[in-house]
């Protein structure tokens, strides 16, 4: 602490004038344990890591913690955190001329070299624009002519970055651990050479995984579909996503910023595996995070111990798309509980699969306080579960529920989707029948608490087709279809122990539009933002009317993007991006879905998704 740790006292004084009038001011001042403060005079490259949502959401995100730690481990690089202020704070900032600032130094982010967004869901696009504007920067990339601040973005949504191309200078496709540092090194060099922005972008285009949208021209057919996407030199015609080859040697954070206030997930998080062997046909994460790689048990234990000791957290959660698919899950849990139980630490396991929900696993997690359990069968009938390749059976669900009820749980949440391809009324009734079978399972338990009723809640979301999945060709069900499906299940319902919640169609529609949008939709995003859209993921701020007006004004039809079947030979707006899973595989999976044919999980049998062909045989660890 003898170093000259930097803080912008002028900004602090300005904030002091009004922060007490703001809800939960602790979100806006940084200073938390684990936050990294450096001597500004010794820093060469500054990175403002922006999460386009609130502090509570962003601070719960593991990816941000990884990249924050990784960048700050380099002595002359400084990465700081930035979140979207809620309206009470934003209003004060705008009124007082306070630009968006980073939480560590309190410096305005427009003075940084990089402004980087992690884009986790489509409904944050307008928030990105709002944050750039609040920073005092032009939101349009072409109006930012200087090299810095360079606006970059990564995260799952940028596998189709097209609707953001007007605003972002550079996209990072795939895993960020290596490529972020490569970009920062390039920046260090370009700043020394006083290189212009254009030169930086052209050099960055040579780095694998970097997509510079301004170096690609898109042409359209008369029917509105994409005709061609052409790279301009020196950009590659296809941008291939980056992956980390050795997951055990990969950087893992040994410390987290520990927030003062409560956040969504206030606990240590350790990643146990990347990718997914399942191949559920609706799930984008299941394809874009391939190949499947597991961390070793020792590495996971070391990371758990290190994180718990450095943060003081007494809860650690294992993170992955499907933790129970860890090959030796029982061995792993034994190794971990040896440590956690000795140290009074709760171990939590989200993302368990119902078919791997064994009594052993259950015992390990029941030390944690008993709240409700959530299962996601996704579809109501076996036929439809086969279509979506969610290879769990009704028996799997009921067996798991039985274990849960016997273990003292009485509240079960079931997640389903409506509007899945080939869905019929029978499938919808199947949802309710399954929920009823769960209720019956409760009463079948002879040791149940007498006088206590089970509570089963059924959550119905609307299916959203996503790029790089076998369902990227599928239309999203129209509002009328979804309404009639919802109506059908409500009419079919006859048990008070089952509560049904439905998602709002508008939100799902917008998500579907933005997920498979082309570059022209950027104009609608811009107009919607101009009309005041921001924080669209928050019900209280979401305003579909503004979005409809925005699409209308730029002559774009939402249903063209959301509700239209796309032919196999249509050029997708994202066809110049290679996520390592081949298009032939996705087409083949789509055909199989329509025939109700399942695909075995990657551990049972390799289905040649393209990973091995694209990156070589030893990277995917699903089989070995």
């Amino acid at each position, binding site marked *: *602490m003898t170093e000259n*740790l930097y803080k912008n006292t002028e900004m*602090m004084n300005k904030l*002091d*004038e009004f*922060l*007490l009038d703001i809800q939960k*001011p*602790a979100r*806006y*001042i*940084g*200073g*938390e*344990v684990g936050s990294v*403060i450096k001597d500004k005079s010794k820093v060469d490259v500054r990175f403002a890591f922006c999460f386009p949502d609130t502090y509570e959401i962003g601070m719960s995100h593991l990816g941000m913690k990884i990249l924050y730690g990784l960048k700050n481990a380099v002595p002359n690089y400084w990465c700081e955190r930035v979140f979207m202020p809620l309206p009470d704070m934003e209003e004060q900032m705008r009124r007082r001329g306070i630009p968006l600032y980073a939480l560590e130094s309190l410096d305005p982010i427009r003075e940084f070299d990089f402004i980087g967004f992690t884009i986790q869901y489509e409904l944050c696009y307008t928030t990105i624009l709002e944050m750039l504007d609040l920073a005092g920067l032009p939101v349009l990339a072409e109006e930012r002519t200087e090299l810095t601040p360079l606006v970059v973005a990564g995260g799952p949504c940028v596998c189709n970055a097209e609707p953001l191309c007007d605003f972002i200078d550079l996209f990072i496709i795939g895993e960020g651990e290596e490529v972020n540092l490569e970009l920062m090194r390039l920046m260090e060099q370009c700043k020394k050479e006083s290189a212009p922005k254009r030169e930086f972008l052209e050099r960055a285009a040579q780095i694998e995984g970097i997509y510079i949208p301004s170096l690609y021209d898109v042409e359209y057919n008369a029917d509105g579909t994409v005709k061609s996407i052409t790279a301009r030199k020196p950009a590659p015609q296809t941008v291939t996503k980056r992956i980390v080859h050795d997951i055990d040697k990969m950087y893992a954070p040994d410390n987290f910023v*520990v927030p*003062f*206030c*409560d956040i969504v997930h206030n606990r240590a998080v350790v990643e146990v595996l990347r990718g997914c062997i399942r191949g559920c046909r609706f799930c984008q994460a299941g394809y874009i995070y391939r190949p499947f790689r597991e961390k070793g048990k020792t590495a996971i234990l070391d990371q758990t111990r290190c994180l718990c*000791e*450095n*943060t*003081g*957290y*007494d809860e650690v959660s294992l993170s992955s798309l499907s933790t129970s698919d860890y090959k030796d899950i029982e061995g792993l849990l034994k190794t971990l509980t040896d440590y956690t139980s000795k140290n*009074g630490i709760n171990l939590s396991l989200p993302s368990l699969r119902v078919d791997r929900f064994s009594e052993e696993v259950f015992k390990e997690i029941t030390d944690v*306080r008993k709240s409700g359990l959530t299962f996601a069968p996704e579809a109501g009938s076996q036929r439809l579960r086969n279509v979506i390749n969610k290879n769990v059976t009704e028996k799997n669900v009921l067996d798991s529920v039985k274990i849960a009820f016997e273990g003292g749980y009485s509240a079960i949440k079931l997640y389903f989707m409506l509007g899945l391809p080939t869905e019929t009324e029978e499938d919808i009734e199947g949802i309710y029948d399954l929920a009823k079978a769960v209720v019956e399972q409760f009463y079948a338990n002879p040791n149940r608490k007498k006088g206590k009723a089970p509570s089963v809640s059924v959550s119905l979301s609307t299916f959203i087709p996503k790029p790089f999945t076998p369902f990227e060709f599928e239309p999203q069900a129209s509002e009328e279809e979804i309404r009639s499906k919802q109506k059908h299940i409500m009419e079919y319902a006859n048990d008070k122990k089952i509560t049904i919640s439905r998602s709002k169609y508008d939100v799902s529609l917008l998500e579907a539009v933005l997920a498979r949008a082309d570059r022209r939709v950027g104009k609608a995003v811009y107009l919607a933002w101009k009309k005041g859209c921001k924080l669209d993921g928050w019900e209280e701020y979401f305003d579909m009317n503004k979005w409809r007006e925005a699409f209308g004004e730029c002559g774009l039809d939402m249903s063209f993007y959301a509700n239209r079947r796309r032919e196999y030979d249509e050029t997708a707006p994202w066809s110049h991006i290679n996520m390592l899973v081949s298009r032939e595989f996705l087409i083949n999976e789509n055909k199989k879905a329509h025939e109700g044919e399942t695909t075995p999980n990657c551990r049972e049998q390799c289905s040649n998704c393209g990973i091995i062909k694209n990156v070589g045989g030893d990277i995917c660890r699903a089989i070995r």
Partner: protein
Amino acid sequence: MSEVISAVPSVNTRVFFSKTDRAKYISHLDLNRAMQGAIKRAKLPVWYTEGYNPHMYVQFMLPLSLGQEGVREVLDFRLLEDVPFEEVTERLNNALPLDIRAVETAAPVLKNTDITTAEYEITADIDKEDFLKFTESEKIIVEKKTKKGTSEINLKPLISELSVCERITLRLPAGNDFNINPMLLLDAYRAALGKELSRVRIVRTKILCADGSEFR
């Protein structure tokens, strides 16, 4: 919930700490969490309650309002093994956020019921003459929130050791039973003045006993 209430053994360690600058925006609840986190990171062998849901037993003497700073706040806990007090201070400082600092660790001498008064230092964009005149009024009636609702009280006889020089310093009743937040006085002044006060900074500098000595 039928948690077993175990007898609470007496605390044996008292940490005096400061909470300044950015940390003034941390609520008391959050401070509690931050302190427990620091104690865990510092690996101090503190006593945990022995109920169904064991939790670390720490006790703050006098909660500080959100937005106010303190330079000698008090936290008690029980150490199960001997750790030299200087080492406790040092280990805590390595584990605390920058704007919360352990100042001194000692064995508790007095009980929280011995606290009667606290001293505050107030700075604000205030006309000091005018403020002084205000404090000299016969009565300063404010509304104070209590458990039963609000009641009117006269602050005038409760203010002691008032000095208005470069800064305003004053003492007000403090303690778990009867505590006067200095903001009450400033709010009353603001109301009398009819305009907002800016750059208000309140620092609790001392926690005091009936005989005027500092709480130990």
